[in-house]
């Protein structure tokens, strides 16, 4: 038996076990160490148990930001390093033994893969973490709450986001999914005195746990049919039984799909999105709206491209296209009348899920990079918009309402311009990142033969301008009613300024020179 194992190893799988490849996991490792440091310092820094003492907010955020910057640099380093490796830029890690197609022998397949797709998501997540952390301190100080434990939670969630992107095994995917979600449940209920925080936390948690129940049961059924949860195995299994896939397998795929679609916020699994986005503390919402979306779409795209391509009937695709259309429609319709900016962005996030899902299900070779480009554009716009809301919100309120936006142009012209650009980018206005994101994603969908759906999506994005511009008009043209609760634009702290420059700048740069990113993203195309 052992001899057989060794002969298999010598047959060319040794590379997969090369320890030095662990360097490729640099971003994850660095963040893990940072989490440990934060927790240990917090624990040993306390003189006696209780809320007092422990690590200070400043220190915690400094460690978080420093380590994330380090992780960012590590990711960049790995980006170049991967190309120099002898056996291609896609490195498998953590191999598990899988039944091979012929069933006579056993193969090894990685449970985790480091490739440019994974690294790009790491980059985005690092940027999100840095910008969110920069904005937590002023936010927490304003709320006069002391929550240094927020930072390890943030990092843990970020680690989950990274891991789920590289995962090539449903159980790894599930573990990463939970690692990503659990800290978020807590972060939503950050302020246990705030009714909205608590409500959003509970809703998110119950729904999330419910959805992961579906995911796990689906995974169990897939295991039953395929004998393993590795994507390679599942793909082989589907390919073998292409014409008559077992119904249990189809149910399994459907249930796993439910678990993922829930996290993506696709209609009809979306109902939690507006409530949770609105109820959570705004920086957490910013993190959630961007990081989770990036990671989950990346994971879903990998599943579509590396797990399901052999599925002949492609009915899962029809189902997802239906849900995508519903997402656009429902997201946009609900957004039309929203007065709360956070809720508006939540519904628009649902609509964006619909557009993104089109690119994801198209399954063309370049769809991975198209989805990533869209995600990058969406991330910057959404992050910036949520941060502006954080900054503008009046005292004692963690949200901004439409009638409070009036005359923002006169009060804080820079903020108004920034918000305008970000909203236009979300709508897909030319010369912003959002435009090219929509362009590449719709292009892939069109090439995949979803032309009528693309037209539907275009109509929807036209509708979306209605509610984005509603806010823009309020900022510039509507006079403020005296006596109305209005915003009190504060001095922008340095962290906010940096974040705004980053998000707005990148939104415009990617809109004017999309090739800068599109060129780099050519590396991220997933092979099936």
């Amino acid at each position: 038996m052992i001899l057989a194992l060794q002969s298999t190893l010598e047959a060319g799988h040794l590379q997969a076990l090369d320890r030095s490849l662990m360097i490729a996991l640099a971003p994850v490792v660095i963040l893990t160490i940072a989490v440990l440091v934060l927790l240990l310092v917090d624990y040993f820094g306390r003189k006696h148990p209780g809320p007092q003492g422990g690590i200070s907010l400043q220190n915690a955020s400094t460690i978080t930001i420093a380590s994330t910057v380090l992780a960012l640099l590590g990711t960049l380093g790995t980006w170049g390093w991967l190309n120099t490796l002898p056996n291609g830029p896609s490195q498998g890690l953590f191999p598990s033994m899988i039944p091979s197609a012929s069933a006579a022998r056993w193969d090894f397949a990685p449970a985790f893969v480091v490739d440019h797709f994974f690294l790009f998501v790491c980059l985005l997540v690092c940027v999100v973490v840095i910008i969110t952390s920069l904005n937590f301190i002023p936010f927490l100080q304003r709320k006069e709450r002391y929550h240094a434990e927020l930072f390890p939670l943030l990092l843990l969630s970020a680690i989950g986001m990274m891991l789920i992107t590289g995962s090539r095994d449903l159980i790894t995917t599930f573990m990463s999914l939970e690692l990503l979600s659990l800290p978020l449940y807590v972060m939503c209920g950050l302020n246990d005195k705030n009714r909205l925080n608590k409500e959003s936390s509970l809703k998110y948690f119950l729904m999330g746990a419910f959805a992961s129940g579906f995911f796990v049961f689906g995974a169990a059924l897939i295991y039953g049919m395929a004998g393993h949860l590795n994507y390679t195995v599942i793909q082989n299994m589907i390919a073998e039984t292409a014409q008559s896939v077992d119904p249990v397998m189809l149910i399994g795929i459907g249930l796993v799909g439910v678990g993922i679609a829930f996290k993506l916020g696709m209609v009809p699994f979306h109902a939690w999105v507006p409530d949770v986005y609105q109820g959570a503390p705004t920086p957490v919402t910013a993190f959630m709206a961007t990081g989770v979306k990036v990671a989950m779409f990346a994971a879903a795209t990998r599943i579509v491209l590396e797990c399901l391509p052999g599925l002949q009937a492609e009915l899962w695709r029809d189902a997802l296209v239906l849900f995508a259309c519903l997402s656009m429609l429902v997201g946009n319709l609900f957004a039309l009348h929203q007065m709360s900016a956070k809720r508006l962005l939540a519904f628009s996030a649902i609509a964006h899920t619909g557009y993104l899902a089109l690119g994801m299900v198209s399954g063309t070779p370049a769809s991975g990079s198209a989805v990533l480009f869209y995600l990058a554009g969406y991330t910057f716009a959404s992050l910036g918009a949520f941060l502006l809301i954080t900054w503008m919100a009046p005292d004692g309120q963690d949200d901004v309402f439409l009638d409070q936006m009036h005359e923002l142009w006169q009060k804080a012209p820079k903020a108004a311009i920034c918000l305008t650009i970000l909203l236009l980018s979300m709508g897909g206005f030319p010369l912003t990142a959002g435009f090219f994101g929509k362009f590449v994603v719709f292009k892939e969908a069109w090439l995949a033969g979803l032309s009528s759906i693309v037209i539907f999506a275009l109509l929807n994005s036209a509708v979306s301008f209605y509610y984005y511009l509603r806010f823009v008009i309020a900022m510039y043209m509507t006079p403020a009613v005296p006596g109305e609760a209005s915003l009190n634009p504060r001095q922008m702290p340095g962290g906010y300024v940096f974040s705004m420059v980053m998000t707005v700048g990148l939104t415009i740069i990617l809109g004017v020179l999309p090739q800068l990113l599109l060129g780099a993203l050519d590396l991220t195309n997933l092979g099936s």
Partner: protein
Amino acid sequence: MIDMVVNSVWLAGLMFAIGTLGVMIHRHPVIIFMCIELMLNAANLALVAFNRHHFSPAWRTMDGQIYAFLIIVIAAAEVAVGLAIIVALFKHRTRVDIDEINFLKR
């Protein structure tokens, strides 16, 4: 032996259905949460049963069972987080009924 696997999977399916139904009809978050645990355990049962089916005597494959353990770990972590959230909610209310928690809507 195949029959046993099949029966176990049917049982798992039943448990999953019961769990789902329980989530639908109950109003107390802790009970809802228990129902969700039931769903997870249904998956565990299915995994273990399927492992029996896929068991290779030569390689002693235990994938399903290991999956089950991993899911138990995750479930435990979920319990920790979930109970904390529910307790936080309890702090300022005497009664916790999810049908009373709908400040965020429309």
